[in-house]
């Protein structure tokens, strides 16, 4: 318990770290970005996720240069060969190299996921901010639209629309995925805009005669940057899942393009006897989404320490403090709000302009 105690008293951002690095460089000016980066790096899972995603990208796009087989080649001497030899992941029924196929599918899935995540978050920001800023009937119409799209699962709509893009470019599929993936984020953005709208700088801009569009783009959206970055990350994961799901039924990426979804679909037909046909594609899919989710989680903790996890640690620390007190800890003030969590971890800003963080003494 004492170990936990010192650990959580020093750091509010994430496990590990320890109280020492909070005070190791008090001389350097602490900008917000440096603070965020440091909090993110302290989260081991998020860091692992980021590294894995980077590696996946490199692997997917660089491996065709050194792999022994390309995706178009067929090895007529090896049908349905299990992994081994020059076929690292085995071969398919017609002698295609599973490794080359998987890498090609990974390329497409990663690209689609990234594109859809960014586009749908941008749409969510625009729609949500418009609804929240104007209020009134604009708000009602847009939120009704959001409700409608939540009633109709996007999977259903895109599968119905799929005959329209059969034989067309996969970019059309990206547009459709983005078009039906923004609703949840838009609701949150709307709520935040409604509070931002009453802030002084927005009012000032309005009284100076700026157009609503300019206010939304220049003043409101940048103020939600952290939320949008987090949501974009999470949306990338959701987009990869949606893409592979639709492709699994043939409603998504169309041949000759392949994605992890089409590969898994092709592999599951004989999955029970030849598991390598789908296990590798499935494994890469899970690793991709898992890493993206970890990064999203880490970003949330780093950018918005008052949200869920960090607050949790803060509260736990308070509970520990309130218990049988060790000599080093003073009992924390009960009025301390959750928003002071970052200041407790970094005495330098805490003492400069956060008068209410009085428990720095326990940290160092």
């Amino acid at each position, binding site marked *: 318990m004492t170990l*936990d105690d010192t650990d959580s008293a020093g750091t509010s951002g994430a496990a590990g770290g320890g109280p020492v690095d909070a005070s190791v460089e008090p001389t350097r000016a602490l900008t917000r970005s440096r603070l965020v980066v440091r909090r993110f790096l302290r989260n081991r899972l998020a860091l692992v996720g980021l590294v894995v995603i980077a590696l996946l990208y490199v692997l997917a796009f660089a491996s065709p240069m050194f792999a022994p087989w390309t995706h178009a080649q067929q090895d007529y001497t090896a049908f349905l060969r299990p992994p081994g030899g020059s076929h690292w992941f085995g071969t398919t029924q017609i002698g295609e190299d599973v490794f080359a196929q998987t890498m090609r599918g990974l390329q497409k899935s990663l690209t689609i996921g990234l594109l859809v995540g960014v586009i749908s978050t941008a749409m969510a920001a625009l729609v949500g901010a418009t609804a929240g800023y104007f209020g009134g009937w604009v708000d009602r119409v847009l939120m009704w639209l959001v*409700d*409608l799209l*939540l*009633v*109709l*699962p*996007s*999977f*259903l*709509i895109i*599968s*119905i*629309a*799929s*005959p*329209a893009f059969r034989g067309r470019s996969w970019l059309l599929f990206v547009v459709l995925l983005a078009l039906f993936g923004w609703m*949840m984020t838009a609701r949150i953005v709307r709520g935040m805009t409604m509070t931002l709208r009453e802030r002084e700088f927005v009012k000032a801009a309005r009284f100076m005669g700026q157009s609503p569009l300019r206010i939304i783009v220049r003043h409101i959206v940048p103020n939600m940057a952290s939320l949008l970055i987090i949501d974009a990350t999470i949306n990338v*994961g959701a987009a990869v*899942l949606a893409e*592979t*799901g639709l492709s*699994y*039924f043939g*409603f998504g990426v169309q041949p000759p393009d392949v994605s992890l979804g089409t590969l*898994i*679909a092709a592999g*599951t037909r004989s*999955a*029970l006897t030849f*598991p390598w046909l*789908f296990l590798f594609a*499935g494994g890469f*899919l*899970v690793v991709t*989404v*898992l890493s993206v*989710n*970890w990064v999203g989680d880490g970003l949330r903790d780093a950018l918005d320490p008052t949200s*869920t996890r960090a607050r*949790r640690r803060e*509260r*736990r620390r*308070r*509970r520990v403090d309130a218990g049988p007190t060790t000599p080093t800890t003073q009992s924390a003030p009960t009025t301390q709000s959750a928003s002071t969590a970052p200041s407790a971890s970094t005495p330098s800003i805490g003492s400069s302009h956060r008068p209410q963080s009085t428990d720095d003494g326990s940290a160092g």
Partner: protein
Amino acid sequence: MAGFLLRRLANYVVLCLVATFLAFTLASLTFDPLAKLNERNPPPPASVIEAKRRDLRLDEPVPQRFVAWMSGVARGDFGNTATDQPITAELGRRVGVSLRLFLIGTLLGVTLGVLVGVVSAVRQYRFGDYFATLFSFLVLSTPVFLIGTLLKFGALRLNQGFGFTVLYFTGEADPSFQGGWAAALLDRLRHLVLPTLAIALHQIAFYSRYQRSAMLDVLGSDFLRTAQAKGLTRRRALFRHGLRTALIPMATLFAFSFGLLITGGVFTERIFGWFGMGDWLVYGVEQQDTNIVATVTLFVAVLVLVSGWLSDVLYAALDPRVRV
């Protein structure tokens, strides 16, 4: 209170109709029901195609077609499939198959999810909490079709290990089955386990994450301390005061996550060979059959409507502030 629920219900009914109309329109615009006929070799005579076209009302504008279909639905007639089978005849059985899967899966998923969430909040940073977190992260990153396939894989190994078939992974009942009702129930159960698990696992992971956060928010609150201070045991305070408050956000979440459940149902039915509504949707899109797709959409919209309304009722039951 009654007014609030009635207003919500009216709103949901309108949403339902609009959603079905949109799906019907989209299907009418993208599908080509005559494609199968045109591709036939030797090509059928022009009069046959013309008759089919008139039969499907393809010359009428889409809204008019929708009104015709909807008025049929009001009388209990959902139209015919592209192969001239009445949809109504098959609808009941398919709805039954899907509902069995959804209801048991949801019940199991919500109950276990809430339970896991509460336990990992109360025992935060213990082994169980870490395990639950890892489990839900892993499950939420795995699409349902992969979970389904892996479950099939596991069942095959299990059956091989036992030397006879313990769990079935195709179909919802043995078609050549003969025996009493108890044996029939057992047979159904052995078919039911894997698909229900495929649905429930996702639900457990999903709800446990949110329940854990909600419960942690409540755990540090003053009213819980007060409840204990006035003499309630910790367990009693947790369940009477803590859990009830922490369940309120879950009620809202329930309505939102229903679309996710249905999408999961489509994969599950398809993988385990259950001929339910999800399977019908995929079939309908593959066959470019507007009526089937519209029927499934209506079913989905009604389900989402019911779940949304149910979550409103739950919300009102849990949160006294709504009831004024």
